[in-house]
């Protein structure tokens, strides 16, 4: 298990850990925007940059790397708050603020780094999407891939195919939930759910009538897990009630 030095403090982590894991294990905070534990790291936002020096490198030799996708190594030295790192993050946030001048999360992060207003020309058509790719990656992760990044450069955006309701979408809302700037709109009620312009009917618990899941999502899970579809239409309330009645039937033998 490799041992690293993070801001002067020693930590030992698993061999397959990333620098971000090690930094967190050392109790140090590094801001991230495109990272989500459990999803393959992507290294897209560049906010998690740190200074890193490998064992055997000259003492003052440091390289700027993204912590979220860089593997650890024995004897690595990491500095998370050097002047050039703070400056690099400031540039990233300045640019993000120009793109998304109205996104509260970006405003807040920028403020943490002393930026009240972007020094670049703010986007004349403000959009809260920072193109972190979390939504498309989570959708890939669950095996659906209903949405993707489209176009390039200035025009790049997250969109369903042909900007029409995505035929593959199962209405699970994972993309909307994971979005750090909450910029994927949806509506959900006891009967219907709409996301990406696609409408879904909700499956309801046969006993309580609560909406639990969309039919498409239940089918997707049932097919992949082999668990009968009825399992997915049981609400938490129903599950608790079932458990309570099971416990009532149990006889405690003293």
């Amino acid at each position, binding site marked *: 298990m490799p041992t690293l030095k993070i801001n002067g403090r020693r930590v030992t982590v698993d061999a397959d850990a990333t620098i971000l894991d090690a930094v967190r294990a050392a109790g140090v905070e590094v801001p991230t925007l495109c990272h989500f534990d459990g999803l393959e790291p992507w290294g897209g936002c560049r906010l998690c940059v740190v200074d890193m020096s490998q064992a055997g490198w000259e003492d003052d030799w440091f390289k700027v790397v993204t912590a979220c996708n860089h593997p650890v190594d024995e004897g690595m030295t990491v500095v998370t708050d050097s002047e050039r790192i703070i400056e690099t993050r400031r540039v990233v946030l300045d640019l993000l603020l120009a793109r998304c001048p109205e996104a509260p999360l970006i405003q807040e992060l920028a403020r943490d780094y002393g930026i009240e207003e972007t020094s670049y020309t703010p986007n004349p058509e403000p959009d809260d999407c920072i193109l972190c790719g979390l939504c*498309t990656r989570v*959708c890939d992760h669950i095996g*659906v*891939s*209903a*949405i*993707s*990044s*489209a*176009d*390039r450069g200035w025009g790049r955006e997250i*969109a*369903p*195919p*042909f900007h029409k309701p*995505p*035929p*593959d979408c199962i209405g699970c809302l994972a993309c909307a939930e994971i979005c750090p700037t909450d910029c994927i709109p949806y509506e959900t009620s006891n009967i219907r759910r709409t996301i990406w312009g696609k409408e879904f009917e909700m499956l309801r618990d046969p006993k309580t009538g609560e909406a639990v899941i969309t039919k498409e999502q239940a089918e997707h899970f049932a097919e992949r897990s082999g668990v009968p579809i009825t399992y997915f239409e049981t609400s938490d309330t129903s599950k608790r009630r079932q458990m309570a009645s099971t416990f009532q039937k149990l006889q405690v033998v003293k």
Partner: protein
Amino acid sequence: MAEIPRSDLSVAEEILGGYPAEEPALIQILQDVHRAYNYLPCDVLERVAEALDVPLAKVFSVSTFYKSFSLEPQGDTIVKVCTGTACHIRGAGLLVEELERQLGVGPGETTEDLSFTIKTVNCVGACAMAPVMIVADKYWGSAKPTRVKKYLAKGGDDEN
């Protein structure tokens, strides 16, 4: 270019038949489809996604990423005006304006009769002859607005 109705999937099937049904073949297939149909019709893309077992969203992503692909029907002749730095300085803007006057459509648009599509591009590597205009495959250097009509008429003809 021969027009293939977008609903005619047989050409797409023929193209698909020439490649292994695997994701790495995607871009080559899209290039062939583009050459055959002069754009990427969405029902053909749906068929490609299905045949290669690649999510439609991924096919859409690739199709919109490359500038050489169009998801809209294009004119038989593509007219490109270089608006890179050198050409911009030497009056590319006037060429675009003249084209708009002549054809009645702007950059990125296609005439109603599907004869011309106007595109602007950034530097075609011929800055010494700026401004550059390309009609079909024919390059016109030191292009002048007063000659735009001539460039269009000559199209991709070889004789000057």
